[in-house]
């Protein structure tokens, strides 16, 4: 356990980061058709027996999408909740294929930056589940 674990998150910082990228990120979140056609292009989805939680759009909608819905008003528990989704369930391999050209890893990457700014990222000693 590091000191970070109990520290309150800096909501102003999160909102600031979200606001700076809003014209681009909200535009794309609103563009997604929720059609699920990107699913099979993600090897993690394929290697988890089609578990919807590994579908590229699912990962973005439930991390960055929620951050924008809540306008950055989130607590550490929320960030810990999406930590696995953005650090573990996606490896930013850029293999996902969306018919309308949505760049999923770019959005996951941005979500990681937000998490990192609040000290939410996997530690090296978190064990095999991360390595």
């Amino acid at each position, binding site marked *: 356990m590091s000191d970070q674990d109990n520290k309150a998150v800096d909501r102003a910082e999160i909102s600031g*980061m979200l606001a*700076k*990228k809003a*014209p*681009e990120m909200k*535009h794309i979140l*609103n*563009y*997604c*058709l*929720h*059609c*699920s*056609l990107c*699913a*099979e292009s993600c090897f993690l989805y394929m290697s988890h027996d*089609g578990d*919807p*939680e590994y*579908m590229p*759009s*699912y990962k973005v*909608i439930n991390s960055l999408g929620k951050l924008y819905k809540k306008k950055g008003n989130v607590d550490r528990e929320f960030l810990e909740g999406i930590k696995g989704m953005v650090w573990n369930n996606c490896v930013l391999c*850029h293999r996902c*294929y969306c*018919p*309308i*050209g*949505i*760049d999923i890893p*770019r959005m996951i990457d*941005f979500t990681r*930056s937000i998490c990192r700014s609040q000290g939410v990222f996997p530690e090296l000693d978190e064990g095999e589940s991360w390595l």
Partner: protein
Amino acid sequence: MDIYGLVRGPLVWVSLIVFVLGMVYQAQQFLSSTRVREVVLPPAALLGGGDFPRPLSLADISNSFFGIHPVITVVTTIFHVFLIMLPIFVLGHNVLFEESFGFSLFVFPEMVADVLTLVVIAGGFFFILRRLLVRRVRAITTFYDYFIVAVVVAPFVTGYIATHQLLNYETFLIFHILLGELMLIVIPFTKLKHGLLFFLYRYQMNYEHCLGAGSRVWSYNQAK
């Protein structure tokens, strides 16, 4: 002015103006988060070989959306083609074009128009069923997604009812026009904007799945 005059006159213009300005705004959002690439490599160069386009192989087809999801690919293609063609070539609309602008286009025979309408409506049902029944689609579906399908299909349902006078003609004609106007207004501000943005993202952005010139990349000048 009576209700018919209102929905048929000023409201048409209001919805068209909102539609056009909204689409211009969305295109501007795209342009402002991307920039022109200094050195434009054709997508072939990204793929590593100079032999692009190469002849299609069976693997290309089985790895395409058609190969992975043949049913949805065929249904959505037919749905889209009919959805876009029908309003342009249906008799009633061309009578209005003639009255307003003094020209009209090729017109579908009524039988054909009927079939296309029913196919579009069936396509809408297909999308709704898919959202209800397929696990991965259900996982990312909210009320909003059903609303969008309804907004798109409603003008076709009311148009069909009005044309065949299945229920009160005048009432359903007004519903039909109002719902068509609602769709125009909703398109630029929802995922329906994909009708325009598809061409910007898939043809302008320089990446592996680029279909066109690929002259743009994300601009990184907005600091994190």
